[in-house]
């Protein structure tokens, strides 16, 4: 009962970074208990071709489940198949990344196995066979340590908490038939928008440039996008005030009721720092704030602050970042 089954998330026929993070975190659990990491991937026929990076990041085996009805996310059939796999073998742990998809799958799997789960954890350790994990709650203001005493353990790990690490293992590919008929799922995903392919995702970006009301109008978000482009790998976020006003789509909202992010660098542009917003980004490693009000709460948590009009500072900063990266 020492092997770990890791959920290798895919979307639109491609592996997500969440898959590599899950395999990396699963490796830590497996190494602590002397077991193997098996990554399980679902997709339309042909998804098996995406297995190699999983082996390269620590999967001893890759379980490939192909079916036409996995072309779209299919949470019922995915969780049923994962639960069947967990019951069939020598697994002590199921682990996934707490992405939008992972957060949906993990409790379904836990329920099918009749166990609770440790959800959205930012760190964990394996002690005497039991998993103890830290999970930020209360909008990031309180760290909760939970211990799982049920077997098997089900755990979802916050995106970005365990970055993909190269660790070449066999990655032996094995195919598995879905449990039940995936075409008969009651919940049907009819369409997945590709979104904007050029757009970097908030959950995955190591740099986030975020804008608030200090930008004065929607069109000025161009300055935020320009700075994000200058960093090359940056995503664009927004405050709730801005998404409520329709300047940016709701999915861009960072905060208590939006996305919780912790990038390496967070640049808050024209954001005063309402509690609701700070709840979503206070765990960022380095925080930069640009705001014209030097008493704004954002400066209390910012590592580096510039007091000034964001509309004047941003173009200069964008040029300077371009030059620094070119040089």
């Amino acid at each position, binding site marked *: 009962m020492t092997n770990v089954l890791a959920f290798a998330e895919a979307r639109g026929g491609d592996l997500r970074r969440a898959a590599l993070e899950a395999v990396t975190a699963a490796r830590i659990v497996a190494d602590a208990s002397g077991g193997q990491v098996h990554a399980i991937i679902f997709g339309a026929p042909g998804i098996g071709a995406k297995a190699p990076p999983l082996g390269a990041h620590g999967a001893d085996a890759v379980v490939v489940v192909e079916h036409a009805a996995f072309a779209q996310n299919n949470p019922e059939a995915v969780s049923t198949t994962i639960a069947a796999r967990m019951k069939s073998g020598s697994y002590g742990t199921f682990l996934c990344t707490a*992405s*939008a*998809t992972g957060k*949906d799958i*993990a409790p*379904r799997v*836990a*329920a099918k196995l*009749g*166990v*609770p*789960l440790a*959800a*959205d954890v930012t760190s964990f350790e394996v002690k005497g066979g039991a998993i*103890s994990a830290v*999970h930020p*709650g*209360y*909008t*990031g*203001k*309180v760290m*909760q*340590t939970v*211990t*799982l005493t*049920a077997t098997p353990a089900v755990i979802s790990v916050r995106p970005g908490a365990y970055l993909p690490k190269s660790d070449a293992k066999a990655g032996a590919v094995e195919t598995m038939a879905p449990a039940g008929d995936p075409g008969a799922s*009651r*919940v049907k*995903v*009819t369409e*997945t*928008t590709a*979104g*904007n392919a050029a757009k970097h*995702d*908030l959950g995955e970006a190591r740099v986030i440039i975020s804008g608030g009301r200090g930008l004065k109008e929607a069109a000025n978000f161009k300055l935020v996008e320009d700075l994000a482009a200058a*960093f090359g790998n940056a995503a664009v976020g927004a405050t709730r005030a801005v998404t409520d006003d329709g300047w940016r789509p*709701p*999915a861009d*909202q960072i905060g*208590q*009721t939006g996305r919780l992010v912790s990038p390496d*660098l967070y640049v808050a542009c024209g954001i005063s720092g309402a509690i609701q917003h700070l709840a979503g980004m206070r765990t960022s*490693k*380095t925080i*930069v704030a640009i705001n014209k009000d*030097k008493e704004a709460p954002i*400066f*209390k948590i910012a*590592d580096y*602050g*510039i*007091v*000034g009009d964001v509309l004047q*500072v941003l173009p*200069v900063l964008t040029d*300077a970042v371009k030059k*620094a*990266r070119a040089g």
Partner: protein
Amino acid sequence: MKIAVCLKRVPDMDVRFKIAASGKAVDEAGLKFDISDFDGYAVEAALQIKEKLNAGEVVVISLGGDVVQETLRKAMSMGADRAVQLRHDGAPVDSFAVASALAAELKGGGYDLVMFGRMSIDTAHGAVGAIAAELLGLPCVTAISKLEFDGGTARMRRELEGAFELVECALPAVVTIDEGIARPRYPSLKGIMAAKKKPLETKPAQLPAERLTLTAMALPPERTGGRIIGEGPDAVPELVRLLKEEAKVLS
């Protein structure tokens, strides 16, 4: 349509929390409590469905001590028809245990739609709704930001990272509610008066043994921010130097 909304009483987050002497809870002294954010959206969404159809019933359910009666009354003052308290001393952290108790109450209730917030804003595990759905054997769609009906079919939207899914399933079903679906209304005076007379039933929660235990609670390390490096565009060169040499996030 008969709708159940499961909701949790949580503290207002706009405070600096203290850890209780036990080291396993927040110190509740002086805290204000209300319906958890996403659960409030679920109540509002349920009321809007009932109002649109001009028929049906909205039942609110909460697990906890007698303090949750105030939270249930608030939901009824918004417009919910009746309430059920599953009495237990506090809300366990084990989402499987909580979901089991809620499922036991929901089962046989004849609900067309069971709604949860996508997570509670305090313990924030985001698992109770999906586990309850599994225990009830109902289809479940989590974290939806839009919900419409086409006969007996629910059509929904889920936000993903940089994309979204359109999802459908037949009723009865369980859904968990994300930001964006509906902003909760404020109770009217008339609503508050009416809520006092609406039925609130109390019964013991049927909780299985907990297998996820909270072993410690702690405050995260304080950020040592507050370093203003300059004013206006003139401060940019120093910022870029610090990002490169000190924070090492620019290369």
